């Protein structure tokens, strides 16, 4: 699983979304999931929704209205991504972005192979 914290005003967050969508489309059938948590406490929900619709994002977009998830995951910079294995253990944290598609594919395949 990939947990991705993002906002619609953050250019690197927006830049990596198409790659996230392509990787999601490729690997969802093998059990891979993306939870894209919008840090809504520092974003505008209408802008975030419009962006997700415009880019055709199919993975779940969660709304962190009060910033609880951002605090819990010690968000320091946007975007921040957490690669989580099947046991629920965070295996890698990528702070900043955009992540390249190759990086996403390699990390997802490594998690799926375990």
């Amino acid at each position: 699983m990939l947990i991705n914290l993002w906002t619609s005003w953050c250019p690197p967050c927006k830049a990596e979304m198409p790659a996230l969508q392509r990787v999601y489309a490729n690997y969802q059938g093998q059990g891979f999931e993306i939870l894209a948590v919008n840090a809504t406490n520092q974003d505008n929900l209408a802008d975030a929704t419009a962006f997700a619709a415009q880019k055709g994002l199919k993975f779940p977009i969660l709304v962190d209205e009060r910033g609880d998830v951002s605090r819990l995951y010690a968000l320091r910079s946007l975007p921040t991504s957490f690669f989580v294995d099947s046991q629920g253990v965070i295996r890698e944290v990528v702070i900043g972005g955009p992540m390249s598609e190759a990086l996403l594919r390699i990390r997802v395949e490594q998690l799926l192979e375990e």
Partner: protein
Amino acid sequence: MLPVLQIGPLAIQVPGLVLILGLWMGLNLAERYTSRQGIEPSSLYNLVFIALIAGLVGARLAYAIRYPQAFAASPTSLFSLNPGLLDPLGGTAAGIIAAVIYGQRKKIPLWPTLDALTPLLAVLTLASSLAHLASGAAFGLQSQLPWAIEVWGAKRHPTQIYEMLMASLMLIIFWPGRAVFKRWQPGIYFLAFCACSAAGALFLQAFRADSTLLANGIRNGQLAAWAVLAASLFAMGRLIKKED
């Protein structure tokens, strides 16, 4: 841990910044003492620059060779700024090969050059420990000691601080201004630094929780440290014997 320094809209990756500062300070320190080895400062700068560029390109290509399908699906990722797509071993090999070729073409003597580079290596080792502290990498085993620090959700040995203390000690011991090093034959200064650093790494690896564990509790890093220690001592022995 301070992986990112947020200054307004700028998110500065602290580990990278620390390493760049370390490179700059190390090169400045090395430059002050290059005349002792009879090396031109410009040759040293060119050598390091070429090794760095070759190292970066080699690290990315080696990573792409390991995962050809991922890069075939996204060829533009070859030019990505993600440090996670670099192969350290491939990069080191490419950097060394490029430096050797440049050194041979410019007829730069091997041992005096390595001696001239030693202050840079010492400063980079210290910068690397600070980068580890900032990113939370090279973290320690869980511990209940009073000086344990909270990293990745548990109290752990502050291995990054141990590493920093060890690197500071090495920098003090191998400070290039010491008169004693002038009397040593070329190569011994560099090899002594490598041997002491490897011995330090052997000790520090015992507290690490992140490196690969091989059979009987021996870590991958310890095996590498033993190899560097043995090779350094062997080369020192050969140089001293040759001098006699």
